[in-house]
């Protein structure tokens, strides 16, 4: 059985076909990267999986159960799938520790002491132990993004989705965030990652999907996709990336 199963997903924004019959299966502990040019529908795909935006056709299953099944409460879905955005979106009026423990406390009714203990553990693990009582604006972009990842992890999700989490960061801060993601992979986290960092996609993923115009055009192991892409459009995309010096 698959952890996530996306079947024939189709989504329109108005008349604009954004996802065209997309299917994707992710096994437990697998890391899948989505690459593709701007506007190809990568973020929309993640948002559909997390039920943040409605879709028109198709089905999404988590451990074999459709996310729109009546047995699936919204709470449970959000608990089991975490998502982190490019813009961190930390709550600026809350300390780091409160950002992280808000959902465990308010949504999942974990006690304050228990959720704080787990938050401290995660912060320590990712080198942010000193910042529990800081406010987000006192942290660098890379630190904020790591807090955002920890916040998603604090719900103990089964799947973590990351949407261009390094795109807003200065080059020297990207490494810290990427190494956090690599750590999570080692711990066996199932992840669906949208990224523009091709060398990162190559080293972290079990599979890479190339999206273009709302469809997955090519899906292969990173070795194969990056060195011997089959589809001409994939070749073209990678060629542009190479010319931009990003591979």
């Amino acid at each position, binding site marked *: 059985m698959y952890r996530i199963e996306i079947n024939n997903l189709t989504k329109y924004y108005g008349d604009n076909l954004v996802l065209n019959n997309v299917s994707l299966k992710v096994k437990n502990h697998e890391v899948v990267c989505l690459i593709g040019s701007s506007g190809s529908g990568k973020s929309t795909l993640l948002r559909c999986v*997390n039920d*943040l935006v409605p879709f028109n056709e198709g089905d999404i299953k988590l451990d074999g159960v459709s996310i729109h099944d009546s047995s699936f409460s*919204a*709470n449970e*879905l*959000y*608990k089991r799938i*975490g*998502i982190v*955005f490019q*813009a961190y*979106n*930390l*709550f*600026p*009026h809350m300390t780091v520790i409160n950002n992280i423990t*808000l*959902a465990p406390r*308010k*949504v*999942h009714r974990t006690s304050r002491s228990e959720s704080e203990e787990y938050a401290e553990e995660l912060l320590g693990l990712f080198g942010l132990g000193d910042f529990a009582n800081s406010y987000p*604006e006192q942290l660098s972009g890379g630190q904020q993004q790591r807090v955002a990842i920890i*916040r*998603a992890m604090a*719900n103990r999700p089964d799947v973590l989705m990351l949407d261009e989490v390094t*795109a*807003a960061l*200065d080059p020297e801060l990207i490494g810290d965030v990427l190494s956090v993601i690599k750590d999570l992979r080692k711990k066996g986290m199932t992840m669906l990652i949208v990224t523009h960092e091709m060398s990162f996609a190559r080293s972290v993923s079990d599979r890479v999907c190339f999206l273009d115009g709302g469809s997955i055009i090519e899906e292969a192991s990173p070795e194969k996709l990056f060195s011997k892409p089959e589809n001409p459009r994939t070749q073209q995309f990678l060629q542009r990336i190479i010319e931009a010096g990003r591979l």
Partner: protein
Amino acid sequence: MNLKRPAPHKRSGRALSAREKYIPTAISVVTVLAVVFILRAVITSSGQWPRIKAQFFSMDAIIEVFPKVLKGFGVNMTVWIISLVVIAVWALLLAVFRSLHGPWFAPLRIFSIIYIDLFRGLPSLLLVLLFGFGIPALQIPGLPRSSLFWGASAMIMSYSAYASEVYRSGIDAVHDGQRSAAKALGLTQWQTLFHCILPQAVRNVLPSLLNLAVALQKDVALLSVLGVRDAVREAQIYTARTFNYSSLIAAAALFLAVTIPMARFTDYITKRDRQRRLQGAS
């Protein structure tokens, strides 16, 4: 995407010499003093000054009337503070009603829109007269008959409409990503509102709300048209009896003693808020 702006720099990098630092200050002080002295000389030398002084600044009159005006001012302050608390809560509720999504909440949304249109569109004085004289005149059993109560209610109704629009602008200013983040964490619409949106919204609009509070402090004096014995009314009674206006000056001094510190406090909050924003943007 890194939009980096260079740090704001002073117009000139070198340190100012003592001359450059103190001469402008000295000139300002001298100018202000000169103007004050000239005005004083002109006013006091004119033949009218003794009359003006007796009419407006009679110490005897002020001392005589002060206890009553002060007692009246107590009414102003009480009404003001109670109204502030009620308005802060009621206006927030109205703003929340208006920001709710979904067909279930349509009645609340429509109620809020009509309420705001109505009460923001009418002069406060008209509302005070209508409520303060009109409702007690109906003599409905079970309803309070005090003009003070109904007049204050009119002020609350009217100011809540304004304050609610201020809150709403604060709610709208909270970035959309905050809602997505809260939703993705599993927070309900209400939890998102209470834990994420409203605290940020209130922080956004605190300076504007404080400005409204200053305006309200002065407008409470409108209740004097109902015969409520506030500071202005007490001063007026004295003026009517003695044809001396010093009582009004006494009342004016009391109002300024509250509104000026409030204004400085608002400036302080505004400045702190702007610094926070600049910091957040860098």
